[in-house]
């Protein structure tokens, strides 16, 4: 009987020595869930812009001011490819709507006055030059007797996308312009 008891005590010690994996598995699950969920929160950035206050009022628009006009011209719409690879065989969803797509080969260029730019870096350099040129400054209406960097009006043509415009606003802002307006004719691309 005594022998038996001794054996069971030894078994106990052995059991205690066995590694308990539960906390480790818990922590691993916790980390998996954490990294899965963190994807839901995308870090976003913002670009400020302004709309003309006088649009829509039928008479006496505000005094015209000198603005730098930048046109976005869509040279190539590109090939629409359904975004999710698993849906590529069926371009329409159950409701008969087009599935979200990405564009391959979408091209646009920019026109600042008569000058055409195909490269964003070259456009940025040109804009920086204008923003820092004292002769390009315009009278500041809010502070009489002072000058300021002229405002920019972005004119997206038919076929320009939100991505094209936002990228341009991004570059215009970093080039030193703070007043950004939008113009251009509205028009939907013919499909």
């Amino acid at each position, binding site marked *: 009987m005594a022998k038996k008891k001794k054996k069971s005590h030894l078994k106990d010690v052995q059991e205690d020595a066995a590694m308990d994996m539960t906390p480790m598995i818990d922590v691993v699950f916790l980390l998996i869930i954490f990294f899965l969920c963190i994807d839901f929160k995308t870090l976003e950035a913002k670009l400020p812009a302004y709309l003309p206050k006088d649009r829509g009022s039928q008479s006496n628009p505000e005094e015209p001011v000198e603005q730098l006009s930048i046109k976005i011209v869509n040279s190539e719409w590109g090939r629409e490819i359904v975004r999710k690879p698993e849906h590529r065989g069926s371009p329409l969803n159950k409701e008969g709507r*087009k599935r979200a797509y990405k564009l391959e080969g979408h091209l646009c260029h920019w026109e600042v006055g008569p000058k055409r730019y195909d490269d964003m870096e070259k456009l940025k350099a040109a804009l920086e030059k204008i923003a820092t040129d004292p002769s390009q400054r315009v009278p500041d209406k809010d502070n009489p007797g002072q000058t300021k960097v002229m405002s920019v009006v972005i004119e997206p043509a038919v076929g320009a996308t939100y991505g094209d415009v936002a990228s341009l606003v991004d570059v215009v802002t970093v080039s030193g312009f703070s007043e950004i307006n939008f113009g251009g004719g509205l028009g939907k691309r013919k499909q």
Partner: protein
Amino acid sequence: MSLLEDEVEREADMDMTPMIDCVFLLMIFFVLVIDLSQKDLEDLILPMAKYATPDDSPPEVRPILNITQDGRMVYRKNVRYDPIQHGDDMSTVGELLIEWKNTVVQDMDEETIGGKLVTVVNDPILIRADKWTEWHWVGKFMTGCSQPEAAFWKIELAMSEEDKEVRLYSK
């Protein structure tokens, strides 16, 4: 005999650790998934910003409008304008802007514009559109913002700090 009793008692003790672990796990899961600040945001792929400032301290008052690739305008998970349903009739957008003016925004000024007294809204609107959404739809919304009855003039364009399209759907 006393040794056996000891063993039985030890086994009868309830181990709370797994339960606490599970509770923490569930708490973290729900905190991350049901984040109330995300309810305004549609699952869109935004264009990537190279230089834009991170939107880490958003203003307290800022309506967020989402515009999908097919031109639907979504506010808080509700489609407020659908090109298929509404066509050229943008009155629902006008109604949405007036709704914001009456209930959401706080900073407003009276200004005389074009000989008319207009209540101008100084709080910004955040526009979130898919990177391939045609600008036509964003422009249409902006036209609505510029109407004297709405008179929103501050706009923020949402961008992403990474190109999710490249990461998720590069194939």
